[in-house]
């Protein structure tokens, strides 16, 4: 909440991929994300949720509309190092130890040498991998690798965490544990999170707002506030309110589906 500006303000944002046949990936996106929100982007494949994430992160440029991040252009925000990113694949550099992987952004951002390691260790503690600093990525399980990726994303204390199906490749049990951990981290770090997912329970469990999207062209069809009490835990998933919200999101997704798939 450092500045009064919203974390993300999108007005009429569109994205067309130009190629042999141009594809309109996003159309008329209006979305305001407040500081410290936890936003889940959900929708079927091809609804442009990953594209929207990449537009916010300045990995792609919008074709139309205006997009502001913390009151700046996405490009300014990226160069001010305001984004932490986590992808479905942990994308750890296999020739670096866990600790060195977490130090990677700090090296690029010219943090003092003495500052890097303590900071990386602090992040390791945060994701509960304190004993694995000297391990190599291949020695870790998928869930542990993903925790390293989160630690790496948080190492330089970005104000916005962009997560593209970060738990998509994990088994259900690991996934639920990771969701809990992520919520704890989010609680402790004053970060705005934008989280792309395919999973309705995941979206409802994590988010303050679930943004429902629909394909061809990609657009936002609903924004559902999730006012379940916090801190959320295992009992949250068993509460009747949780089921009501699941149903609400599921029905929004069904409404968003333009017609039954012909394939």
């Amino acid at each position, binding site marked *: 909440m450092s500045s009064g500006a919203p974390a993300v303000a999108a007005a009429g944002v569109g994205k067309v991929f130009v190629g042999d046949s141009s594809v309109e990936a996003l159309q008329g996106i209006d979305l305001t994300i407040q500081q410290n929100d936890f936003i889940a982007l959900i929708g079927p494949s091809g609804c442009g949720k990953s594209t929207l994430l990449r537009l916010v992160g300045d*990995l792609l440029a919008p074709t139309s509309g205006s997009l502001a991040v913390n009151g700046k252009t996405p490009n300014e925000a990226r160069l001010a190092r305001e*984004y932490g990113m986590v*992808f479905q*694949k942990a994308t750890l*550099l296999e*020739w670096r130890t866990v600790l060195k992987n977490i130090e990677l952004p700090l090296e*690029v951002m010219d943090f003092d040498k003495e500052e890097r390691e303590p900071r990386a260790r602090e992040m390791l503690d945060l994701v509960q991998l304190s004993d694995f600093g000297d391990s*190599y*990525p*291949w020695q870790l399980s998928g869930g542990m690798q993903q925790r390293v990726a989160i630690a790496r994303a948080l190492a330089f204390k970005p104000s916005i965490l962009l997560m593209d199906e970060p738990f998509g490749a994990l088994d259900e049990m690991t996934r639920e544990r990771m969701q809990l951990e992520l919520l704890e981290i989010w609680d402790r770090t004053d970060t705005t999170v934008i989280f792309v997912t395919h999973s309705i329970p995941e979206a409802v469990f994590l988010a303050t707002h679930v943004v429902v999207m629909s394909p061809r062209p990609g657009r936002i069809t609903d924004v559902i506030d999730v006012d379940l009490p916090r801190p959320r835990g295992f009992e949250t998933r068993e509460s009747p309110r949780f089921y009501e919200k699941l149903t609400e999101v599921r029905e929004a997704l069904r409404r968003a589906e333009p017609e039954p798939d012909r394939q």
Partner: protein
Amino acid sequence: MVEAIEETGGEPTRTLWSRIRTVVWFLAIVGLMAILYEAYKAMWEATDGTIPLLGIDWLVRGNDITMPHTWSIIDSLFEEVQRGRNEILLVDLLKASLFTLREALAGFVIGASFGFGLGVLFVRFPLAERSFMPYVVASQTVPILAIAPIVVIWGRRFGVSQWMAVAIIAAYLTFFPVVINTLRGLRSPQATATELMRSYGASHREVLVKLQIPAAVPYIFTALKVSATASVIGAIIGELPAGFPDGLGRKLLVFSQRFASGPEKLYGTVLVASAAGFLFVSLVGAVERRLIPGTRRVAS
């Protein structure tokens, strides 16, 4: 420069026992090939050079001129080069190998550096790749036998030492695999890794040094092993127009001219020359094992 390399921890799976096994296998296969060779000779003699029933000649004649006995090849290595000169052929050939290996090594270093530089340039500037890549490919379709004299003659013109001209010919054969594999290696990181670096606001140089080059190291070593053999061949071929009397090239030339009177010597020279190439490749392999840490092994 490459930071892939710091803490390696060696390669625990390569124990002494597995090394011994590798050597034993190698010797067993050499022995097997010698036996097959002698068996063919014996068969050729037993059948008088004709395939029974068909009445066609065997593909290669197995007489002692075309295929001298393995033991006479070995023997020839221990005979004096010339009567009165107190030096056996093996020592003479080893000296020649050393001479040729030095040229090959110089060519290898020049070619590998040039190839790596070209690869980096191509990845950074796709236009450069599109413009120059066809010529890089074309350069390898021209027979080295035609290029070698040109390099030597031009070298003379421009005051480049003959020795350096030979190294350049070796480099000519060396750089190509390095360019190709450097390109592949630099492009091997996942798209998300590049996006990650971009999200950190990393410069091109930082992406290159911290992501692309370390990722390319295993690819480059694959190329270097191919290049090591190619550089020895390039040096041998380069020695011919340069007229060097001390290298393997001249030995091969002389002994092939005297083939009819003493074929064993040519065979012996071929053996030593390939051993020299083998040694070079092994050295590159040893460096590779030291530099590439256990991280690229399959998880256990």
